[in-house]
């Protein structure tokens, strides 16, 4: 098979330099690649196959202009794209073939949908003449992904390629971000068109960023200024909106204490005096208790997910709720908003600032402190300075936090270790937390970590994974090895599906139904993938083990054997109210 060596290179440079980005008589597949380049996509994650081969041929030709990372499973491509997008705050791209390639993307797409991550997935499809005939590797990708995408479209003619891809990026990136799937039939990839790229700037039926209502702002300001016990809930929206500075200004002016949702972590440094901790099922004691005691609740960029509210019929009923949110469908969906403030978080904070009064809530803040002390005594101390023989996940995370000075990007999988990493790492730098929240997808971490590393090569990326989740996508070690991405992986191995075991202990009389894992030699497997690895199972070796990992030049995996049965507290049991949070 002959291999072309960039025969059009000169022409491409000319085209990319030209302001109009025009090219005559090129294939749909080439148009796909050029459109991605025009959208400033530097890398994409994918896995080839029959129905997407024309695009792969063009990627080969343009490899100096756009980098493709070959994953080991299409699910890995989606999580890698998510990890990448959470850092760049712009849509990342995955590429897969038809049939099973496309269906393997679905979990990641659903995850991106519920966590509002911008993503454009391009799938190959059988030729349009074969649609509906149960052809080889044919699936109704549009039908199957409709409920889990922000938008999707099937391209059947080459001439549609530039416009549809432009529209895909616009929709994925704007307003409340989300995943978009573009299914391209093989004949559309092979067909010819005259290419001219234009960016999409508006879609008629879509208002991504509603205008902020001045009356709502005035009402909110009035409530905030009169409040005696205000509390602010900070969610992912603040990070998406890049409103960290505005948030800081707001808090320091109004003196209002705040709590973060899981996806809002690192919007404000953990150490900030007004940061009272994390909300939700395994959040901190104070934020949960005080939610049901405050008089004004200001929610920004968060959707009152059930993990945060507990029993929603007994959630903050005593408070006046101000809900700052860009997606109108979230207003009054779970919690009634007395003052809905629909709009972008940054713009909303800016609009509120001018008339807000400078205040301090000394007594109110002391109440949070008291909760913090109690939580420390009953839960935290034993987690991070344990007296037990076995290592706790908490002490490992604590040590990682100290060694990285709170400045690493922490990527986690799903389960007990995830909650522990959320609670015990000191997030000092923003955009430092990448985790599967809404869907809770096990196997998310490993690919998301290398996606994040591609987006932030100069930052330390630490993947904290459980032994269960690791095995769901461990094949992506191959991707890490092949692309030489320097990700630091820590397996917190307790030989159990810890979170499920905890529930079985607390609510199912310790009937540990199929949660005990017979684990392989993780170190041997990792070394088999050409990545350096080691195991630590005693406290005295932990610090040294971590140092070796961080100092190693290249990817590294450290397996840390943890206590088999330890529970994550505090906990709001299912059906309980937030103030019924348990410390044991």
């Amino acid at each position, binding site marked *: 098979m002959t291999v072309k060596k960039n025969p059009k290179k000169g022409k491409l440079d000319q085209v990319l330099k030209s*302001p*109009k*980005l025009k090219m005559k008589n090129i294939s749909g597949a080439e148009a796909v690649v050029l459109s991605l380049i*025009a959208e400033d996509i530097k890398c994409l994650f994918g896995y080839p196959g029959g129905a997407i081969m024309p695009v792969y041929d063009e990627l080969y030709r343009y490899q100096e202009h756009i980098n493709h990372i070959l994953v080991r499973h299409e699910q890995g491509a989606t999580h890698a794209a998510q990890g990448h997008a959470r850092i760049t705050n712009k849509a990342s791209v995955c590429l897969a073939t038809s049939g099973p390639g496309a269906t393997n993307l679905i979990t990641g797409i659903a995850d991106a949908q519920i966590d509002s991550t911008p993503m454009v997935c391009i799938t190959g499809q059988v030729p349009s003449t074969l649609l509906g005939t149960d052809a080889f590797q044919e699936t109704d990708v*549009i*039908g199957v992904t*409709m*409920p889990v995408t*922000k*938008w999707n479209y099937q391209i059947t003619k080459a001439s549609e390629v530039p*416009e549809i891809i*432009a*529209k895909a990026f*616009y*929709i994925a990136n704007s307003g409340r971000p989300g995943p978009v799937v573009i299914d391209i039939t093989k004949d559309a990839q092979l067909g010819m068109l005259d290419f001219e*790229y*234009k*960016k*999409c*700037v*508006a*879609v*008629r*039926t*879509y208002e991504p960023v509603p205008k902020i209502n001045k009356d709502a702002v005035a009402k909110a300001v009035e409530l905030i200024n009169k409040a005696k016990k205000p509390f602010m809930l900070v969610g992912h929206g603040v990070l998406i909106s890049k409103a960290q500075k505005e948030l800081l200004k707001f808090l320091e002016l109004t003196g209002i204490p705040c709590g973060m949702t899981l996806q809002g972590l690192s919007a404000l440094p953990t150490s900030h005096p007004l940061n009272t901790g994390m909300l939700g099922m395994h959040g901190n004691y104070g934020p949960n208790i005080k939610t049901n005691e405050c008089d004004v609740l200001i929610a920004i960029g968060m959707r009152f997910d059930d993990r945060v509210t507990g029993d929603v019929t007994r959630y903050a009923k005593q408070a006046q709720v101000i809900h700052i949110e860009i*997606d*109108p*469908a979230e*207003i*009054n*969906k779970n919690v009634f908003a007395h003052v809905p403030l629909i709009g972008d978080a940054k713009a909303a904070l800016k609009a509120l600032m001018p008339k807000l009064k400078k205040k301090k809530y000394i007594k109110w803040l002391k109440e949070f402190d008291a909760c913090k002390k109690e939580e420390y005594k009953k839960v935290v101390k034993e987690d991070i300075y344990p007296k037990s023989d076995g290592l706790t996940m908490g002490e490992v995370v604590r040590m990682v936090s100290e060694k990285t000075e709170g400045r690493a990007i922490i990527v986690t999988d799903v389960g007990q270790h995830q909650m522990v990493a959320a609670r015990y790492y000191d997030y000092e730098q923003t955009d430092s937390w990448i985790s599967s929240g809404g869907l809770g997808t096990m196997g998310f971490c490993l690919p998301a970590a290398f996606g994040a590393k591609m987006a932030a090569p100069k930052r330390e990326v630490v993947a904290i994974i459980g032994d269960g989740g690791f095995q769901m996508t461990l094949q992506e070690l191959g991707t890490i090895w092949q692309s030489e991405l320097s990700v630091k992986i820590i397996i917190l191995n307790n030989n159990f599906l810890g979170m499920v075991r905890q529930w079985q202990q607390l609510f199912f009389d310790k009937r540990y139904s199929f949660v005990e894992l017979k684990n392989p030699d993780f170190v041997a497997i990792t070394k088999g993938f050409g990545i350096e690895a080691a195991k630590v199972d005693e406290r005295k070796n932990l610090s040294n083990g971590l140092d070796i990992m961080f100092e190693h030049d290249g990817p590294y995996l450290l397996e840390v054997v943890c206590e088999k049965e330890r529970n994550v507290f505090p906990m709001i049991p299912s059906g309980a109210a937030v103030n019924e949070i348990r410390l044991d």
Partner: protein
Amino acid sequence: MNTEYTLSILTENNVGLLQNIVTEFTKRKINIDSFTGSETENKDIYRITILVNASEQLIKKIANSIEQIIDVFRVVVYKDDELVYQELALYKVPTKSLLDSNSVENIVRENNARILYVGKEITVIEKTGHKEQTQELFEKLKPYNILGFSRSGRIALSNKNMKSVNKFLTKQLKNDSATYEPVK
């Protein structure tokens, strides 16, 4: 407390949209009582009329969700007293029933129905009206052996001049369905 609500969903003329909209109901386990779609007075705008029985709170949430779907312009929620609505029903009876006596003919007259088709074996009667009326006719025709029955979905128009919605749509239609600008 559940009430009958009619959702008037104004969209771009795109077929794939139906699945998206129906999903908003099915995922909340809500039965759609009737579903019709057609162009509006404006060829670029399509209307999907959905009849649903649910609580006010839930309907508002569903309407908000549907409005966020790309290609949906606007969703308006109506109660029965805010609408002019109609359904169509067809009843198939044996032509013999018509010839045996003049009872069926009387029923048709009294109920403002009409005979749409007369064949050797079967006759089809048509009635337009509200559900209660078409159902009433059904009950009256039952003794004469109904061989087939079909009811259309509800179509409806607001009983007011929806100035703000019309203004909004006129403004939207001034733009292309998607706007593009050259790369800078």
